């Protein structure tokens, strides 16, 4: 077997373009997918036209509230491109320079202020989008909706805080600034104290009873409105999210991205190499000569699987070593990495052998390997809940039949503690090794025909 292994490595070494493609292509794909998964899109560029006068403020009961910094909040979430006119905004959207344009019209604050009057208007902001690309249009809709929700929240909070201050003034008393001066508000608490002081001086009778009722009201109102204060503030954001993980343990996104990159590299290198080198034996007409007493079909399959595992392991470890320049990895878990990669490579190599035994030519086998590996890899990355239940069940079955997903789970678990169980995917991979070895052995019977 070792002479065949050496022969395959020698042939691989003599095909530098093939070897480079075999290694570089999957590594590049893996890194790109890893980056795409680990990092969301950068801040989208949005043209921002603020026509609202600089000193305009939302006012409550005739009093101007402090600025809610809506513009600042929006520009924290997107890359704001300042424009000076609606025409400029339209041009930028049409040319694709920006994803969308957000226009705050001049009368926006007046319309907001009119909400507390007898003739309320409808405050509106304008969003310009280019809908030539449906995907982009959908993304813009989602982003703008989220931004406006945040802006509404900021305004609502500012109003609630100011409302709370007024309520506090009614309860505790204090100075209410009006124009140049201020009006002193006595407040419910002080009113109650004054009345309590007066009450003993009054003779028993209906007047004193009535005063007692006023004192009781002032105390009750003060206490109850005190409770209403925080309630009003909560109105701005009545529901908060408390996330509890009840199933699985999600690894950090970077670890998951590295696991994807490693598994993609391992899958492409192993499946393509094993399938291609097995098909090469047939293309070179060497298979019948080899299996005519020189090596058994099982030994030949074993040699190809060993070749795929060895090369896949080396390339994947080198890639992980290279990635440590950018992302810290737990090298203390190297033993577990090795186990996960070896078993994963074994299953991927066995599936490569089954593919290699199914076709006559190296080119056909390479195409077949790509056509199988790539879609299975992408299907394995589809998270539950992002597609319909029935479709996800189909995806689950398909991905369970191929070694990519269990290999990804095993490598993810090996890379970082608390990233899921290692035993389960290893057992899954072991079962796939046996299944694909049997399929490959049966398919090799076709090879014997000359």
């Amino acid at each position, binding site marked *: 077997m070792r*002479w*065949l292994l050496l*022969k395959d490595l*020698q*042939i691989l070494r*003599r*095909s530098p373009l093939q070897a480079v493609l075999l290694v570089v292509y999957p590594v590049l794909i893996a890194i790109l997918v890893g980056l795409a998964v680990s990092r969301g899109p950068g801040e989208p560029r949005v043209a921002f036209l603020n026509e609202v006068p600089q000193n305009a403020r939302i006012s409550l009961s005739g009093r101007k509230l402090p600025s809610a910094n809506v513009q600042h909040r929006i520009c924290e979430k997107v890359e704001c491109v300042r424009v000076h006119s609606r025409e400029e905004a339209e041009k930028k959207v049409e040319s694709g320079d920006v994803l969308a344009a957000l226009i705050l019209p001049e009368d926006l604050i007046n319309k907001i202020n009119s909400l507390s009057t007898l003739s309320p208007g409808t405050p509106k902001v304008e969003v310009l989008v280019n809908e030539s690309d449906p995907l982009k249009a959908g993304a813009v809709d989602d982003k703008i909706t989220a931004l406006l929700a945040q802006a509404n929240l900021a305004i609502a909070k500012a109003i609630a805080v100011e409302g709370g201050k007024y309520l506090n003034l009614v309860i505790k008393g204090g100075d209410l600034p009006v124009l140049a001066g201020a009006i002193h508000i006595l407040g419910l608490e002080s009113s109650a104290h004054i009345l309590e002081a007066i009450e003993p001086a009054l003779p028993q009778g209906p007047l004193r009873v009535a005063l007692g009722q006023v004192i009781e009201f002032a105390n009750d109102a003060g206490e109850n409105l005190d409770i209403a204060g925080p309630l009003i503030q909560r109105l701005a954001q009545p529901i908060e999210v408390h996330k509890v993980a009840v199933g699985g343990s999600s690894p950090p996104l970077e670890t998951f991205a590295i696991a994807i990159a490693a598994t993609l590299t391992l899958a492409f290198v192993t499946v393509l190499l094993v399938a291609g080198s097995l098909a090469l034996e047939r293309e*070179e*007409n*060497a298979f*019948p*000569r*080899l299996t*005519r*007493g*020189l*090596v058994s079909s099982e030994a030949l399959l074993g040699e190809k699987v060993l070749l795929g595992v060895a090369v896949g392991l080396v390339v994947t470890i080198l890639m992980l070593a290279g990635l440590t320049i950018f992302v810290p990895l737990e090298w203390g878990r190297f033993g577990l990495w090795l186990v996960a990669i070896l078993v994963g490579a074994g299953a991927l190599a066995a599936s490569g052998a089954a593919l290699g035994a199914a076709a006559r030519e190296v080119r056909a086998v390479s195409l077949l390997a790509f056509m199988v590996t790539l879609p299975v890899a992408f299907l394995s990355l589809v998270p539950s809940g992002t597609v319909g239940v029935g479709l996800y069940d189909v995806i689950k079955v398909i991905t369970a039949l191929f070694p990519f997903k269990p290999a990804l789970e095993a490598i993810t678990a090996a890379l970082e503690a608390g990233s899921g169980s290692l035993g389960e995917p290893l057992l899954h991979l072991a079962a796939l090794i046996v299944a694909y070895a049997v399929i490959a052995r049966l398919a090799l019977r076709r090879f*014997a*025909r*000359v």
Partner: protein
Amino acid sequence: MIGPNGAGKTTLLSILAGILRPDGGTLEIGDGAVGWVPQQAALYRRLTVEENLLLFARLEEHPDPRASGAEMLELTGLGERREEFLARLSGGDQQRLNIAIGLLSRPSVLLLDEPSVGLDPRQRAKLWEFVSGLAGRGTTVIFSTHDIQEAERYGGRLLVLADGEALFDGSPDELRETVRRESDAAVAAAADRDFETAFVAYLHHRGH
């Protein structure tokens, strides 16, 4: 072995080589190895002549694979091209190396499946000189061919196959004699002059 396309020549050789299992009948193989050389060169194009020989000598578990390789290089006359990749050899040289690898097991019987297919007349002559030399040194060579003149010239015993059936087993002269006996005067005369005509007439008489 001669016969029209689809007669079963390659199938029979593959059964004799132990690659295919017969559907029926028995096969008796005497002492000594049976060498087999497939119709298309079963060699690695990205290895050199010497590396191909060395690989198969190692797989045959020769005690000294390099010496065995050198011996085959001398036998095939490919010594000067030992470091050339197979892809750069002519069809004739590739076929000689193909046969040399079949000889590595030092077989007492060598099976050649249409060894001269695709070779030009000069390469063919060199190949048959090489094969005749093997036969002269005591190796039994069984070969299939479509070239009837080649069969007459190099075959000591002919097996005529058609549609999986063995129609004739004997020498070229015996085949010619059979045709002479079974045909009219004109055909017999033509068969006397040309062995291919005799072969076609023989098949025609047997409904093929």
